[in-house]
């Protein structure tokens, strides 16, 4: 009798944990897949679980380091047992030699890396082979690297490019880089040396961003209009101004940018202050965008309430090229 109860309760337990008991029957391929979503530190730690897990981490095609020391990173790289490196995320604030950083990046490139995110917190030259990496699909450079203005750029598979606070060797660097990315779909930039871009590049982009559908841009207003002319398929634009040194209005383009006529649906302006040159650009976009659905305008805290009402009234009276376009005003909130 007692035995039967025990059997029944075991049966019940098995039933409620049937997935769990079978998890250990998953093929290594699936377990490696689960491990590939962990930071490398946690992935290597699973070697303690049991014999089967001892070397599983070494076959995971990803590396994701968050401020590990140099010896640790090198050790893990040497102990890996798989040739391919699909994803390499290196967040490294600890000082180390440019030579070491160069070695790590080259290591990834030689292993056909597809997704590469680098954050070093200080500028360093990147290995030249980064710019001719044929396997790269997704690249983020944050606070590191210098984008060269000459030499080969050939990134035939690159779809996503994020550049945050990188240095540009010269004004031509950005167009030069983009010209080597024929299938780029997403470009996100946070610019730190916007001055140079604003003065020269803003009027000198000869590269077209044909596949670009979504753009988050931090730059000045003149650069914004230039970008619109070169991004025929742009649908979603998030813009905030980097520098407020420019008091001059941006010159409207000679022809209405193609994206305004048939593509651009959503625009967000981050933190406007109410300057005439800001309103001019908003007026232009509202006037000529034919399929615009929504414009969100975030205004700053520095605007007085009367000034604000006047500004909002003025904007809401701007002619709209799209009858269905709604305009939302949102006060900047500080979280």
């Amino acid at each position, binding site marked *: 009798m007692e035995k039967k109860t025990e059997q029944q309760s075991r049966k019940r337990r098995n039933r*409620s*944990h*049937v*997935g*769990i*008991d*079978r*998890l*250990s029957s*998953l*093929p290594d391929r*699936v377990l490696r*897949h*689960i*491990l*590939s*979503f*962990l*930071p490398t*530190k*946690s992935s*290597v*730690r*699973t*070697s*303690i*679980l*049991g*014999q*089967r*897990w*001892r070397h599983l981490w070494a076959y995971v095609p990803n590396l994701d380091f968050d401020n*590990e*020391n140099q010896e*640790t990173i090198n050790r893990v790289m040497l102990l890996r047992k798989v040739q391919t490196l699909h994803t390499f995320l290196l967040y490294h604030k600890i000082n180390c030699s440019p030579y070491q950083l160069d070695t790590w990046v080259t290591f990834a490139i030689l292993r056909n890396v597809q997704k590469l995110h680098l954050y070093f917190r200080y500028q360093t030259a990147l290995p030249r082979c980064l710019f001719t990496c044929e396997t790269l699909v997704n690249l983020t450079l944050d606070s590191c690297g210098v984008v060269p203005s000459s030499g080969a750029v050939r990134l035939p598979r690159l779809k996503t490019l994020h550049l945050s606070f990188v240095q540009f060797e010269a004004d031509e660097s950005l167009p030069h880089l983009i010209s080597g990315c024929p299938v780029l779909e997403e470009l996100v930039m946070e610019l730190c040396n916007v001055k140079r871009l604003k003065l020269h590049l803003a009027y000198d982009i000869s590269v077209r961003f044909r596949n670009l559908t979504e753009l988050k841009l931090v730059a000045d207003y003149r650069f914004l209009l230039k970008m619109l002319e070169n991004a025929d398929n742009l649908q979603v634009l998030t813009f905030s101004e980097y520098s407020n040194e420019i008091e001059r209005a941006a010159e409207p383009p000679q022809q209405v940018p193609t994206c305004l006529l048939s593509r651009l649906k959503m625009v967000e302006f981050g933190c406007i202050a109410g300057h005439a040159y800001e309103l001019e650009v908003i007026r232009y976009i509202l006037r000529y965008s034919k399929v615009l659905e929504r414009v969100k305008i975030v205004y700053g805290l520095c605007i007085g309430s009367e000034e604000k009402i006047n500004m909002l009234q003025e904007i809401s009276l701007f002619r709209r090229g799209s009858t269905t376009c709604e305009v939302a005003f949102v006060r900047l909130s500080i979280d």
Partner: protein
Amino acid sequence: MAAETGTPTTLTLKSNDDELFSVAESAAILSVTIRNMVEDGCAGGVIPLDNVDGKTLASVITYMNGISAIPADEEKKKSYRDKFLSDKDFETLADMVLAANYLNMSCLMDAVSAKIAQVMEKKSVGWVRRKFGIENDYTPEEEAAVKEEHKWTFEGVETDDDN
């Protein structure tokens, strides 16, 4: 025939505990396993899915319908997946990863794997062994040696044992 007349084709799926489910073919073929059966002409009657129980299959079908109703918009799909998995406990996630593996559904597989990884990352060794059904087959000496070998992975790590 149905495809020619423009009527959406419906498939009938059978779980390993004999529950039957109707699902639009267009949603069901997110599973490469099912798609192959459809393409091979084996989907005429009932499609038996021997490795998935009714409760899990119902959940997978909810996912299939939900995600295939979203047009090509990766961000919306991602937020649907996040929401879909947000209230699932570890046992359910375990069932889902097994089902996604069997049904060969890469998008569900990725989302569930990521969620499992997220859950296990902060858990103790004991918790993970228990939840994954892993038998500790190290001798104490071996275990100590492995721990020593990768001691950096245990430094500064806080784990818990909660469910």
